[in-house]
């Protein structure tokens, strides 16, 4: 697979505060890439640098093997879908979509028939038929999203950047647009770079997921690998499905604030030592239950549980005050009820834990 976009050591600072601190990444052609990062990690800055609204302080950006840093946005051929859609308020749906075709500086389409035909095709593709003459104030959020996407896709960019495209939609619509965005992308065959702060969205959407942390790409891999093998404790923390202990490896155990945790799982080098165990890998047992040799056991007091349909999340406080979360899938067993402030044993297999050294 050839790379459509390559970033080499891209730096960008605002008033001395670094937003991007050496981004290296390569995005493959014809894929859905999601970019996950907590707020303030530089996601939007990265998108704006790629689109050309901001200039990088140093580094190289190659788009289809051509250097584009320094090229003005309107000559880059990269589509950008704004979080707030940024539709032209004085133009109708069809006029919004036709804008790029008729007004671009490079190779504008002057034949009104050709424009009308391409606008009609793209309106069909994104499912907006019948709304061509509506004002942008007379359509719903999901429809605005589609107009914004159609307006970009009709110019046939080789790559589309989406800045939290589902952030402005309500939960129901968000789920539906996830599927639609993927379908639309497959039909167009271009690379989408989808920026999001939601780990579930990033995992669900991306063929490749990039994790941005403090202005650097912390990990770049497929969703499955990311979820089960985060590259560092910080990445594990963004995924919001790991209990993480600080500490250090000493001998054949990990010395953590809640005691020594026996090693046995995967050890990864990340520079920042930590011990991580996924919420759904932990079993809750009475304190007097037996523990097998390959298991790790700690004790904690039950606080509360949260029911989320297919699973139930139980919260415990450990002896050092830290909160520990356990996710139990209800398909495995009927939900047990736990006594508030009661002591329970939390047990997991040694090899399920991730150890960062």
């Amino acid at each position, binding site marked *: 697979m050839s790379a459509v976009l390559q970033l080499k050591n891209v730096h960008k600072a605002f008033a001395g505060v670094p937003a991007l601190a050496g981004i290296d990444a390569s995005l493959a052609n014809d894929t859905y890439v999601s970019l996950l990062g907590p707020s303030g990690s530089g996601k939007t800055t990265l998108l704006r640098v790629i*689109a*050309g*609204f901001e200039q990088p302080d140093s580094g190289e950006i190659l788009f289809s093997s051509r250097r584009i840093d320094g090229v*003005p*946005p*309107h*000559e880059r*051929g*990269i*589509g*950008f879908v*704004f979080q*707030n859609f*940024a*539709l*032209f*308020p*004085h133009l109708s749906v069809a006029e919004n979509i036709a*804008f*790029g075709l008729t*007004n*671009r*500086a*490079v190779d*504008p389409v002057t034949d009104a028939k050709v424009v009308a035909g391409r606008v009609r095709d793209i309106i069909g593709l994104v499912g907006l038929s019948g709304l061509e003459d509506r004002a942008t104030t007379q359509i719903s959020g999901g429809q605005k999203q589609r107009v*914004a996407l159609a*307006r*970009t896709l009709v*110019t046939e960019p080789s790559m589309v950047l989406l800045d939290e495209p589902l952030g402005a939609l309500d939960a129901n619509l968000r789920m539906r647009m996830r599927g639609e965005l993927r379908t639309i992308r497959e039909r167009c065959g271009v690379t989408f770079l989808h920026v999001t702060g939601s780990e579930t969205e990033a995992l669900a959407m991306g063929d490749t997921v990039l994790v941005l942390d403090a202005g650097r790409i912390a990990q770049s891999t497929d969703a499955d690998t990311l979820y089960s093998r985060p590259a560092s404790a910080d990445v594990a923390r963004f995924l919001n499905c790991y209990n993480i202990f600080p500490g250090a490896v000493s001998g054949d155990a990990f010395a953590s604030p809640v005691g020594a945790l026996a090693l046995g799982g995967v050890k990864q080098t990340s520079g920042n030592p930590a011990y991580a165990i996924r919420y759904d890998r932990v079993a809750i047992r009475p304190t007097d239950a037996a523990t097998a040799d390959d298991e790790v056991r700690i004790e904690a007091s039950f606080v509360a549980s949260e029911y989320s349909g297919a699973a139930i999340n139980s919260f415990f406080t450990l002896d050092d005050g830290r909160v520990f979360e356990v996710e139990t899938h209800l398909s495995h067993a009927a939900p047990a009820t736990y006594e508030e402030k009661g002591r329970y044993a939390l047990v997991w297999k040694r090899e399920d834990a991730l150890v960062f050294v």
Partner: protein
Amino acid sequence: MTMAATSHDTPVETAERPTRKQPDRTFWLLAPGALWMLLFLVAPILMMVYVSFWTQTTFKIEPTLTLKSWVTFFTSDTYLGALWTTVRIWLIVLVSTLLVGYPAALFVGLFVKNKTLSTALLVLCVIPFWTSFLIRVLAWRPMLGKEGAINMILMKIGVITQPIEVLLFSELSVIIGMTQIYCVFMVGPIAFMLGRIDPSVIEAAQDLGAGFWRIFRTIILPLSMPGVVVGAIFVSVMVLGEFATSAALSGRKVNLLGNIIVTQVGSLKWAFAAVAGVVLTILMGAVVAALLRVVDLRKEL
């Protein structure tokens, strides 16, 4: 006793309250303004129309209805000339305030990203208004005069050998003065509309491949049109009613309808002044109506 009864009744009446109380409140909120306008705007205008048909003799005016003042107005070259001068100066000043004001508004409203700074710049535009109108007008005399600053500088650097006389006491000086005084009324509304344009809309147009002039023509200009229309209404109404600037800067060479009214009132020719007043009012009404047709302000604002 009444108070107690009212507060006691309130919960019982809530259901019918909105329908019964609403017209009441509307009436009381509108009454002061409506009364004021009726007494001091509508009544005087009607009076002016009425007086324009009175019979004017050299020393007195009688309420005997006649068309004589109207006939005199529309058959006299002087008065028709004043009407034409008024329209011409209005159009020139409107265009020049737009040409000077729009770029300034574009800078303040769109290119200055910092909201505090753009507000500060708009306030700067208003600073000349801290001085009196007359001083602002008269200050142009030492600037434009035969031995004024501009002529002196141009002669010093050798661009001209004779002072340019047309600078002061001419139509040009009236236009220069009015443009300077009324420009800010054009800048304000346009800058306000430009400031409301979402920056990401312009970035979206850039991203779709449009260059600056394309974006200006297709996005920025249409979105700022309501500001242009409001500014044009401000400038038009003020310029059409002008008399002081032309009196001070034209040396009585430029006579606007406003100057005619001042002279006629000064010589107690009330009927004649009323005719000029009615003509001016109709002209302003027509101009404002025409400008409002350009943009549907209710929809855009």
